[in-house]
């Protein structure tokens, strides 16, 4: 394992997730036509790598994540986790959703405990893990609150703690901070990086925010407009913690921005063509 070596963007380490020739087609029922959401995705994600995926809306990035999580089935290709094909959702792939997806009838503590309890981890052990996790994401004192009593940032902390407590092999995050205000978002990004570097997690993080992608990722995957393909994978060699005001950061950001801009334009053009043809 090369996890402790500086310059962790390089894919030289062991592969944790391998995506091979992933394809996803579905029929758009209202428009009576076939849509190709993903068209041949190949991707290797190294052990304790932080990968961010960037793309225009509708490019299939959520579909890609849902297939890795096994919420959706691929039309072709496969996803390997530590060499084994994934078939159904499980606690080895912890998902953090943009909409939090907390169980509203459970308290913070019960939400975090949910996975352990459902997998019949003995109570004493469970309590210990949960307590430690609550402390590490800064939720102490909020154990008995219900999700609706918490702010968006706090809810997303609960969601993160709920998957981390299961000790997942990889974290899958689908625009987890998109609904948060700028300040909370920035704070959550720092906390996520803290958790990631302290616990050596592998992470896939989807976003449509270029700064976020560059700030968090060892590598940034830029996807094309539909049909979703990988346009380019950019290794981010900036040292951490990264300074978003530095020249190097902004050069990288501009470069990725230029790559993305073309795709956003393409997505727009396609959308406009669709609306006019519908009229």
């Amino acid at each position, binding site marked *: 394992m090369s996890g402790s070596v500086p310059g962790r963007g390089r894919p030289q380490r062991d592969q944790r997730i391998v995506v091979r020739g992933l394809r996803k087609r579905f029929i758009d029922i209202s428009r009576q036509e076939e849509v190709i959401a993903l068209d041949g995705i190949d991707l290797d994600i190294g052990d304790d790598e932080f990968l961010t995926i960037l793309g225009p809306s509708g490019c299939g990035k959520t579909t890609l994540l849902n297939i890795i*999580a096994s*919420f959706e089935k691929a039309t072709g290709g496969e996803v390997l986790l530590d060499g084994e094909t994934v078939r*159904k*959702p*499980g*606690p080895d*792939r*912890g*998902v953090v*959703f943009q*909409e939090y*997806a*907390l*169980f*509203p*009838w*459970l308290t913070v503590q019960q939400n975090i405990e*949910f*996975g352990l309890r*459902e*997998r019949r981890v003995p109570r004493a052990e469970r309590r210990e893990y949960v307590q430690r996790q609550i402390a590490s994401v800064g939720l102490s004192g909020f154990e008995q609150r*219900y*999700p*609706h*009593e918490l702010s968006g940032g706090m809810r997303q902390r609960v969601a993160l703690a*709920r*998957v981390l407590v*299961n000790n997942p092999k990889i974290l899958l995050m689908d625009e987890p901070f998109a609904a948060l205000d700028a300040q909370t978002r920035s704070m959550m990004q720092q906390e996520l990086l803290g958790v990631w570097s302290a616990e050596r997690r592998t992470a896939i993080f989807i976003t449509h925010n270029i700064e976020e992608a560059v700030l968090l990722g060892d590598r940034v995957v830029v996807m094309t407009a539909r049909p979703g393909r990988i346009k380019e994978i950019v290794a981010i060699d900036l040292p951490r913690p990264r300074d978003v005001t530095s020249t190097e950061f902004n050069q990288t950001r501009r470069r990725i921005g230029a790559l993305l801009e073309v795709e956003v334009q393409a997505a727009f053009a396609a959308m406009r063509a669709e609306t006019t043809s519908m009229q």
Partner: protein
Amino acid sequence: MTAVPVAAGAASLNAARIVAGVHLALRRIAGPAIVLVLWHLASTQGWVDPRFVPSPVTVLHALQEWMFGPKGASPYSGTWFAHAGNSAYRVIVGFLMAAAAGVIIGSLIGWFRFVSDLVDPVIQVLRPIPITAWVPFAVIFFGIRDGSAFFLIALGAFFPIVVNTAAGVAGAPQLLVRAARMLGIRPYMLLPRVVLPAAMPFIFTGLRLGIGLAWVLVIVAEMMAVKSGLGFAMWDAYYFLRLDIIIAAMLSVGALGFLSDLIIRLIGRRFLRWSRGL
């Protein structure tokens, strides 16, 4: 600009709150009070025949005698608690049967596609049939006793409970199901641990509709198929033209129905504390 204006502000705020509370109470009492006054005038001023519309005072006296009068002093004296108890007993048993069947069958319909395909059409066809149409069958199969009332009440209250439960279960957010699967839940635990809790607001709506119907149906059952209870007392009083007793019985059913709905609402409030933020 120190403590004095602040304290004065708090005091006047308090006063304003009390005034607002009194206003609200007055507005809410005003409607029923006007109805009572008009009713009383209609009966005492000869706008209607007082034999057919007894005044509120007459009704109150009748109710008082019915509830607390010595047994045997008159045909109804002192028999209220027996009648009300009989009705309440039938409502409770019938409702519990409906709740158990409705929640279980509704869950299966909402969760399993093939159960829905099989059972839902049957329910949708039976549902619009007035429960009164079942009375002959109830009497033939269960006789003129409690069984008939249980059957009619359970059948009537079953429909809103089963329909609402099925809708709630079928509509449980897919996102929460995904989250639970991702956290490693065993598939057969999804229904009890995720889907049913998510459906609770719907289930309680069904239960409230069900208990309301149960009180309607207990009166129907007692008028037609059983020889005791508030419904029977009403029908009996009609033969003797004791319209004061009929109105007293109507008010009794209203009060008991309100009370039972309140109990379900309070239970629901405990269960659904979380849903206020949704």
